[in-house]
């Protein structure tokens, strides 16, 4: 009962924010709504017992990546998208098509997923940092290292791209 209410609440927040992200014409509004989505998702992760992932979601996504976005938006002082005379069918057919597709997807998921006990808060206890750390540094050690290398490369790339030499 409580779980359901909470989930619906967070889900509502997430969806509303996501829609807002799409419809807003100003990047900073979109960015903030994306942060909202992430927050809601973090709470949902908590509900699913993913403590560490929830925290990581907040720290990495909301706390770092999105701040970077906002930083860039502010730096470029990006304005609203200028309105284009967009074709009618996009506006008037796009939304129903979207809804229809989502319906189909939902139907597919409902049909294809074997029935399983629903989610209750606290039923999943594997998401704590200890477990994550254990499997991260034992089972997934190599991927982990590789990712770190990837990050390094990304940093270098970013530095090179953003350096002054680019004219």
């Amino acid at each position: 009962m409580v779980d359901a209410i909470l989930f619906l609440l967070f889900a509502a927040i997430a969806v509303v924010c996501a829609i807002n992200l799409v419809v807003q014409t100003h990047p900073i509004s979109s960015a903030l709504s994306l942060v909202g989505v992430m927050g809601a998702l973090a709470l949902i992760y908590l509900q699913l017992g993913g403590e560490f992932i929830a925290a990581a979601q907040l720290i990495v996504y909301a706390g770092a990546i999105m701040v970077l976005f906002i930083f860039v938006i502010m730096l470029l002082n990006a304005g609203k998208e200028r309105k284009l005379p967009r074709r009618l069918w996009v506006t008037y057919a796009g939304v129903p098509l979207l809804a229809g597709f989502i319906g189909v997807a939902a139907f597919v998921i409902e049909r294809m997923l074997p029935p399983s006990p629903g989610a209750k808060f606290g039923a999943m206890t594997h998401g704590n940092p200890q477990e994550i750390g254990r499997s991260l540094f034992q089972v997934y050690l190599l991927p982990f290292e590789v990712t770190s290398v990837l990050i390094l490369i990304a940093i270098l790339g970013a530095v090179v791209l953003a350096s002054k030499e680019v004219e």
Partner: protein
Amino acid sequence: MQQLWLIPLLPLAGFALNGLFGRRFSKTVINAIAVGSVLLAFLWVLKSLNSLGAFSGGGLEVPHVEHYFTWIQSGVLNISVDFAVDRLTAVMLLIVTGIGTLIHIYAVGYMAHESGYYRFFAYLNLFMFFMLTLVLAQNFLLLFVGWEGVGLCSYLLIGFYFSEKFATDAGNKAFIVNRIGDFGFSLAIFLIAIHFGSLDFGSVFSQAKNLPIETSPGWITAIALLLLVGATGKSAQIPLYVWLPDAMAGPTPVSALIHAATMVTAGVYMVARSSSIFLHSPMALEIVTIIGIATAFFAATIGLVQNDIKKVFAYSTVSQLGYMFVGLGTGAFSAGIFHVMTHAFFKALLFLGAGSVIHALSGEQDLRQMGGLARKIPITCVVLLCASLAIAGVPGTSGYFSKDLILESAYQYAPWIYWVGVLTAGMTAFYVFRAFFMAFTGEYRGNKHPHESPFVMWGPLAVLAALSLGGGFINIPKYLEPMFPLSEGTLPGFVALTPAVFGFAGIGLAYILYVLAPGLPESIANAFRPVYTLLYNKYFVDEAYDSAVVNPTIDGSRSLLWRTIDAGAIDGTVNGVGKTARSIGGVLRHLQSGYIRSYAGWVVAGAILVVIVMGLKGVM
């Protein structure tokens, strides 16, 4: 474990060092690496053989095998990288590393003024690596690796002076001719894998021992003959011997090491190694014998009239290899190996001596431009004399013992082969001493200023001289008896004497013709002009091959393959494909708007389609 892997790995390390960084090294460093690695390998051979009891009485009767790792594992076929040492391998190891060390040392002096110094030694070390792999290998595939590797190195080293057209041509010739042999060899390996289900020497030969002897040609004969094809390629036997004389284009140490002492004997080694296969196919043995004797004879005849000192020795190598094959074919495998060893001694010595002469004359190879060198370069003269005596089979010298053993078994096999062999021995003595006399006696005919070689060069020569004189007293056949039982049975006394007699006759004849009556050979040559030309042009074999094989191939490939198939069919298809693609692309091009979002739109459309299909499937 004796860490046998160290033996080939040491030269490989040398190759890696010199090959990668040699450009920056000073010559001393390069020498240290190149010679040092081979010397270390030699010492390691001695150590491991000693600790395996190879030098004591009963040691190594059973092979000592070391398994390193599984190389290929497919179905029943399980090929692993193993090294093994038995008495045969021990002999070969000692020859290869020992002679190799000496020749490396010699090369330091010989190559001193050459460019591409580090390249030369890198190749030489690489060759040592492959040769040792070949010798140590415990299965056919690994042996084949070494086999091909030495082929490669010989190609590289023949073409060492790659700025010279003839050198590169010779290299190509050697490589291509060897391909033919290797083709046969690989077929043989396939057959073996099919019929024995393994390539490991141990299992193959133990199975082979239990097979019946094939009176009528069967698959054993096929295997044996294909192996023989490979051997003829590598060991320069008829019909594939043509590459060896040209191979003299390489630097002399190479000729000595690869094309006299070690690589060319690989075929002999291989046949001896698979003796238990050959022994089950008398027909194959017969063919081996015939090829051997034929090669020995013809090569000797050609050698009679050559004027290039290295050419002379090259043909004598071919003919000596023929002897070895006679030994193998007539079932005296140990005699063959024995001859391999002695031949390694005196032929290496001959080449190195020749090299020393050439060095002294700063590049002159034509015998007619020499003469009277005995006083100018005495040491070289002496050592070459020793070598010549040995190859001429003068009693007491090493050549005498081995050749004699071969001829004895030949006599037991079929007397006519014996007589041909004896005749060849006579000719051998003749042309070797012809070369010797032309070079060292009489008046100097050239216009260079001969100078004696440095110690690094004549030091090894001295060692080899000692070996080629005394090497015959190392009783290899006795040593190899557990593997190749000696044939007993008494022979008429003259069998052992006649070769020596013929040898002396040849020497004497050479002395008469080239020292006492220098004008005589010319008149003889004029008297038998056609024969002379025939011999001088090596029976026109090269020309025959050219017209019979090479040119047709070239024409065929030019007219048919190139013009018709390549230009016409293949290019046509390719271009056609290109054209169609372009026309289709012309249509599809309009999809490529350059707008990321339109691309993404297509992707999404596809994804939606997939989802819907999946959904329908899920529903149904």
